């Protein structure tokens, strides 16, 4: 067990690279990712209590709200942030479907959509809706986001 109050160094894998960072044990993953050491500001704080999904990243391929995870919990795990997507089909789908306006919610939706696109075999419209309900977009009508994600999550209807 590490100290509960003093900074500690931990290691994890971020976007395919092993990284060592010094953190306070009380830090959320969102805070660590956005901090000076990693500078991954793609994940956004929208509520910091799990309600909005703007902070979503993947932990071992599973979408997780990074504001609800303490960084020590993901020691030695693999984190993927929006910056780690390299020409992923979901990104093009968002462009093609105009699935954003202000763009603040976009990283979070992209990460959920990307996770769905990695598991097409289990894809279905119901599942897409269910997973995307964890995120809020205040600008679009959701239809654009649904269409974009569907095109990669269950491309055959």
């Amino acid at each position, binding site marked *: 067990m590490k100290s509960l109050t003093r900074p500690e160094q931990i290691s994890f894998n971020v976007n395919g690279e092993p990284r060592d960072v010094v953190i*306070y044990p*009380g830090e959320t993953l969102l805070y660590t990712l*956005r901090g*000076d050491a990693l500078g*991954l*500001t*793609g*994940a*956004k*704080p*929208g*509520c*910091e*209590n799990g*309600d*909005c999904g*703007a902070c979503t990243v993947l932990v071992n391929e599973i979408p997780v709200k990074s504001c609800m995870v303490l960084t020590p919990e993901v020691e030695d795990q693999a984190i993927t*942030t*929006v*910056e780690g*997507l390299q020409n992923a089909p979901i*990104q093009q789908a*968002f*462009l093609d479907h*105009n699935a*954003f*306006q*202000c*763009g*603040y*919610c*976009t*990283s979070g939706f*992209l990460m959920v959509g990307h996770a769905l696109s990695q598991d097409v075999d289990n894809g279905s419209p119901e599942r897409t*809706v*269910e997973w*995307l*309900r964890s*995120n*809020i*977009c*205040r*600008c*679009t*009508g*959701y*239809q*654009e*986001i*649904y269409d974009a994600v569907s095109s990669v999550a269950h491309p055959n209807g």
Partner: protein
Amino acid sequence: MTIIGTSVPRKEAPNKVTGRARYTDDINVPGTLNAVIVPANKAHAKIVSMETEAAKNVPGVKAVITGQDVSVLCGDVTEDRPPLARDKVRYSGEPVALVVARDEMAAHRAASLVKVHWQDLPVVNTIRDALRDNAPLVHEKNGEYAVATPPVYPKKRSNIADEANVTKGDADQGMKNSDVKVHVRVSLPQIDHAAMEPRIAKAEILADGRVLLHASTQAPFEVQKLIAKYFKLNPGQVIVTAPLVGGAFGGKAAVQLEILAYLASKAVGGQMVRIVNAREGDMSTSPLGMGLEAEVTLGATRDGHLQAAQMRFYMDIGAYTDSAPRIARAIAAQCTGPYRIANVHTDVFCVYTNHTYTTAFRGFGHMPMTFAIERAMDELAHTLHMDPLDLREMNAIRPNDVTPTKARLTRSNLGDLPQCIEKMRPLIDWNGGKVQSVGAHRVRVQGVAAFWKTSSSPPNAVSGALVTMNSDGSVNLSTGAVEFGPGTKTTAAQILAEKLRIPLDRVYVHEDVNTQVDPEHWKTVASLSTYMVGRAVVDAANDLIGQLKSLAAAVLRCSPDDLDYGEEKIFVRDDPSISIKFSDLALGYKYKEGDSIGGQLMGRGRFIIRHLNLLDEETGHGRPGPAWTVGIQAVEVEYDEETHQYRILKAATVLDAGRVINPAVAAGQVMGGMNMGLGVASREGVHYDAQGQFLNQQFRSYKVMRMGEQPQQYLVEFVENPQLDSPFGARPIGEHAVLAIGAALANALSRAADVSLNTLPITPEQIWRERGARL
């Protein structure tokens, strides 16, 4: 060229899908201090004393500021708001102190240690409370505050912060001449903008006296002016930067955190201080959208021609006025909705309560106002046994009519509502509003509602554009409009590309706004950017073309009048083989011998709104905006008569866009507007308990639409009747789809449930309650 009318992607789109788009809190300077607000936990109470010692002793804390340290009063119209409460608090969530610390954690810990000793005051918790005789006063000094931007007519020793009236014709006589009258009362709670990016501001005071502010704002130039005014600085000293904004909806046109950030920086010797709202504070501390209680009486002839309207609107503006008086005038000026009514009398009251204060919300008061008038229109159709769409078409306001404030309408300044209605009929497959049974206790029904809106902008609103050339002949475009989602910068770039006859990717936009280098743009509000920025861009393009031609004329030894341009060249009109490339002129022309003339070419464009005036105090007459956008909206819902649950099957909008500059972006704006309007009508609203405590300051309790709750189908169509003084005829469309869709929903559900649903939000429980008497 074909750039106008083409669905081009937003300039910043690739950055937004890669996490590279940077918003205010994504750009931080190491060493920045953090400020945290101590919010009041009382809605109305005297501050007897405050203890800040414990907070100051927290390691890392640099300063604790209270209302005693700040004497300035702020306000868009009436200067009634202390940035930090002094003497008493007027809403729960109001900032009473500000803690500045090295890191956020220390600041939060210290904030929790600030102790306030209160003496409770009676809470003004509803509009009715506020208007009672001998009601407790939210502002004892009402009527004595300085007024920054008249007009405003507060009533002393009352909770009425302002009153606006409009009179046209003789409403009493008009009512007498009417065969039928309907009377509707509506009640709408305050709502939250809920932009996904919480409000944030950062301030730094440099040793040379300059103040650098970075904020998520729709109004960087307003921030500049107000900070300069409140703190006695020269405007040029105050430099405001607004990067990409993560949603705004009117809520970021108010200036609040910027002032606190400045105070915080000042308290720590000018170091950079960041202040960011948590979601809870973004809802309860920063301003909301107003609540409304309204009464509308409409009189009409037996065949459905509107004769008279009498209306009273009571706005729940909360504890401070902010822009409420301007919203009140907007409501007064457009009170009839898009209908021709000869006899009108309307009173609008801004009512102080001990609720969170309010500011502009997408539509600038027109959404709640439209709800009231459109519910009355449907009641009228019901009373007359008329098709609600026919009734609206028959009474639609047309060119040569005058508005309630006697502004003259023309084919240019007014969109074509009848044409929109004609397009709506097939689009929604209009069935006259009949209630159709579709199974055991399940019915399907359609509802419609119409809207109009003008900008209600100040009569001297300005905009500007600056175009500089790069060595390869491409151009940079700098404007003062902020990008918060509607593609403002892209639209400006489209207009510039079209005018210069160059591809869109040859225009580089300056994405952030910086008040020191970008030309002034009033505020990025009121859906006016295409019109105002667009006009400035056209002016700048013409200026640049003039410069290109005159330099080319010197080189080509001809008159500029002989020259034309295209494909990034200036050429002789009657012999295009004699030409010179933009790139050879961009930074001056270099002769073979090496000597050069010209220098960098740069186009300057400006615009100021014209022919507007403030409404007359007595009659309310005047011209509140350059043009009125109109449209019709419809929904189809399936309603369960047993559970009162419902599902929105279709939501449709037809609006007169004048000219659609970017069809995909425009359709997205309209769908997003419908989604927000339906969310507001079906589930949103702030709840206060009996003590005036804001109860639902999180998304788990303040419900907004989520995936799967949107209509099964969005239908969007435009008609295009140009507004002649706008670039390419484009009309404002950014806010409008939010305006009437909630009323359309209420109209459909009122018919389905056979009860007047005039209170928002319309939850199944609310329907059950309204029907209660009958069950």
